Each structure stands twice: as C-alpha cells, then as structure tokens.
C-alpha cells in the first residue's frame, strides 16, 4: 500500500515537473479551462435572470444551484485531472500494443494505467469550485451544519469514484472493440445528464430516465447527493438515497474492476 502511495507521489511529481517546464503553456491551460467555467457560470446566471429557481420554487434557487454547479465542477475537475488524460490514452495503448509494457511492470495494471499522468492545470477548476462554494454557501438561507460539512467531501469522492468506474468500464470495452472514439464521446454525453438536479427529470420520459440513471447507471447520484447534502438542511427522506450512493460507489468500483480484469484476459497485443 505504502509502495503504491510512493509510486503515485512520483507520478504526481513527474507531471508537475513536466508542467513547470512549459510554464507559459501551463498558465494558458489554466486560464483556458477557467474561462470555459466562467462561461458556464455566466449562462446559469443569465438563466436565473428569468427564473427564481430551477424546478419547484424553494428547491434549487440561485445560490443552491451555485452550490450544485460548484460540486459538478469539483467532481469533473478531479476526474479530469487524475483519470481523464490516462484513460483517454488507454485505448491508444491497446491499438498500438503499448499496453504490453504496462502489463510487464511489477505493479497493478489498473493502478498504472489510471494514474500515470496528472493534469495539474485542470485542478485550477477545483480551486474555482471551492471559491464558488464559499461564495454561495454564505448566501444560503440555512447555512450547513458541521455534519453536512463532514459528509460533503466523502460524497464528492464517491461521485468521483463512480465516474472513474464508468470510465474504466468504457475503456475495458475498447479492449474488445479495438478502437472506441465514439465510446468516449458517449461518456461525455452520458455524464451530461449528471449536470442538473435530478428533480428536473420527471414526466413520462423523465421519470424512467431518472430511475435508469440513478439505479442502473448511477450517474445522477454523482453530483446530486453531495450537492443536496450541502445546499439543503438535512432531512430524513434523503438518507435512503445517501445510503444508496455508498452502495452504488462500492458496486461500481467492484464491477468495473471485474470488467477490467476480464478485458485484460482477452487482450491480444498488437503490431510488434
């Protein structure tokens, strides 16, 4: 375990050294990703010019929704910084046969291919998210209690783990298919559903959609559970979903791990 931590820290240091070698580029990357975030924020602020809340009044008002948005940004920047650059390279490793080198190393392959590179500039979004969180929490009608503050990071990590599992599962499919550019687009399009409060999915199409993305592929849990936990006072009716989120995280991590091992078993190298 300690060895893995040391390897991870080495990866982190290497990535940072590489980023700092091209410092101007690093700053441009930070500014670029922050500007995209600012645009999103501007879009939602524009929407709140026209409406007091998204969904039923009193549920997701402006500042509650900003807490939600900050949570979305946080989870996405964690995924983007730690896993995205690595797993997007994974399907390329399969296509070119470079996965052979990863398999030969005396370390867990899933660990190695998940964390080799860290995109430090994406973490600037997480800093922005924390700032946005502090700003909007101070403006909520009912400030969160200590328990809420303690549970929030736990559920943010759960959400990140669920997204990570989904990526691992999709990458495993690329072992079987050879190449799956569309599957990565698919990842982007599917996770798009997690960007809004789950209450907006209702009606004859919305309800089945909500259930599918809560219980079958639990991406609605990713942001909704931590955001609701912090933005609204604790209510007894929220506990079942919060409990489910923990279960879902464990199931996703295990399930994707199994899929990954199965996929490696059917890997047949490529080229020479």
């Amino acid at each position: 375990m300690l060895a893995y931590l040391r390897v991870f820290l080495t990866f982190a240091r290497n990535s940072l050294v590489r980023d700092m070698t091209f410092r101007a580029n690093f700053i441009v990357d930070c500014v670029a990703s922050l500007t995209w975030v600012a645009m999103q924020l501007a879009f939602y602020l524009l929407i709140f010019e026209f409406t007091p809340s998204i969904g039923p009044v009193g549920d997701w008002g402006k500042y509650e929704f900003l807490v939600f948005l900050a949570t979305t940004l946080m989870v996405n920047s964690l995924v983007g910084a730690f896993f995205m650059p690595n797993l997007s390279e994974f399907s390329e490793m399969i296509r070119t046969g470079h996965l052979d080198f990863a398999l030969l190393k005396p370390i867990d392959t899933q660990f190695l291919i998940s964390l080799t590179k860290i995109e430090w500039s994406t973490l600037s979004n997480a800093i922005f998210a924390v700032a946005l969180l502090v700003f909007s929490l101070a403006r909520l009608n009912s400030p969160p209690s200590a328990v809420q503050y303690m549970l929030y990071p736990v559920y943010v990590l759960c959400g990140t783990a669920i997204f990570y599992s989904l990526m691992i599962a999709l990458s495993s499919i690329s072992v079987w298919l050879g190449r799956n550019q569309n599957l990565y687009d698919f990842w982007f399009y599917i996770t798009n559903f997690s960007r809004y409060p789950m209450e907006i999915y209702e009606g004859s199409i919305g309800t089945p959609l909500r259930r599918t993305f809560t219980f079958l592929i639990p991406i609605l849990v990713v942001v909704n559970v931590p955001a609701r936990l912090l933005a609204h006072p604790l209510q007894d009716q929220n506990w079942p979903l919060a409990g489910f989120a923990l279960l879902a995280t464990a199931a996703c991590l295990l399930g994707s791990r199994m899929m990954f091992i199965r996929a490696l078993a059917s890997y047949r190298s490529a080229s020479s």
Partner: protein
Amino acid sequence: MYARALIWWTILRICVEERLVYRGDFALGTLMRFLPFITQIFLWRAVFASRAEPTIGGYTYNEMIAYLLLTNISRAFSSMPGLSTALAALIRTGEIKKYLAQPIDLIGFYLLSRVAHKLVYYLVAAAPFALVFYLCRGFFAGWPDAVTMTAFMASLVLAFLLGYFLEATIGMVGFWFLEVSSLLFVYQLFSFFISGQMFPIDILPQGVQGFVDLLPVPYLAYFPVAVFLGKVQGADLVRGLAIEVGWVVFFMLASRFALHRGLKRYSAFGG
C-alpha cells in the same frame, strides 16, 4: 474552362469518396450528439415551469426547444471542425509547398473539400436528423411560408460560406504565429457564448444584444434559426441578410489577402 471544371469536379468526387469511408461512425456520432439535447429540454422545461410569464425574451417554451433543435441545423452548415488547425499545420510543417507547386488554388481546394464533407454529412446525417425532428415535431408550430423558407435557405448557405472563410482567415494567421490554437480558442469561446448555440441571443440584455447583432458569429448559429422561427421579418430580415453577406465578403477578401501577404513572408520549413 472545361478542363478547369473537370479538375474541380474530380477533386470534389475524391473528397466525397474519402468521406464516405467512415459513414457508420458518422451516423452513430450524429445521433449521439443529440443526447445532451435531452437534458436541455428538461432544463428549460424546469425554468419555464417555475416562472409566471409564459415567455423568455419573446420565446415560449415550445419555441425555445424548437430554437435549440434548429441550431443543430445551422451548426451543421457553419461549423468547420479542424479547418484552422489544418491550415496552420500546412504552414508550420511546410506541406503548403504542395499547393504552391501545383496549379491549384489553396482556398478553393479547401472550400471544395468542405463542400464535399458537408454533402456527405447531410447524406449520412439526414436519417438521424429526421428521426430526432420527427420525435420533436410537437415543439414546432408548422412550416414557415415560402419567403421565410427561401430566406432560411439563403442564410444557411451564407452561414456555410461565413464559417469557411472565417476559419480559413484564422488558419492563415499561421503565417505569422505558426500556432493558432490560442487564437482559435478565443474565437471558439466567443462563438460558444454569443453565436446562439446555447440560447437565443434575444435573451441577452438589450445593450449587449444590439452590439452582438453586428458581429459575425451570431450568423453562424442564431440568425438562420431566428429567420426560420419568424423572429426576424421584413426590413430586419433584409438588414440581417445584408450584414451576413457583408461579413462573408469581408472574410473572403481577408483570407485572400492573408494568403497573399503570408506567402510573401513564408520561409518553407520542413522537408
């Protein structure tokens, strides 16, 4: 004249065939692209449900959804994925020499290749588009009249030309900067927010809107859709089309001028 037409026809045919190789990937990708649209429908429904007035910036809920759906059509005409970077890469790697040595006009060649790209795209994307529009037919009030329809078609063709020449001009900046990605980023940021692909620019504050109207980017997504939905009519329609033509001509000349001046300082890197 005939020989020249034959050359252009051959180029177009080659480009079409090249594109058709990936048709399955294409059709699936197009259908996928509508997935985020589902969340947009739910988002706007929630927004409209929680307010007292039935319209936002003059758009009813149905019109808003129809608007967002139709922007996919105007974007299908105006978007030029990878054009600027491809042109800048030609300059950086020195591959542009190929076009200088051959009796082919670079801007014309790429225009044709994009026409081919688009033709194939419409051919393959027609089915997924038709399916989505059929499923969403409830959001539309009906077909617009012939005049509006003609203006809509014209604005789409102009949007294609504007998109092409605008991105070609950005690509030509590569003669001076070599790497255009940061410039392209600024442009994309602009067009993301004010071209109208996220929301109709009518909902922006009045002062901002008057200014945005004069820029080229709203003509890439917002304008054709506004024409279709009858939001721009009469004198405004003529004025809008005139501005669009103006921008097309401007960027047509700008890309030519940049190519001409750029070639003078071009130093032929690479092998």
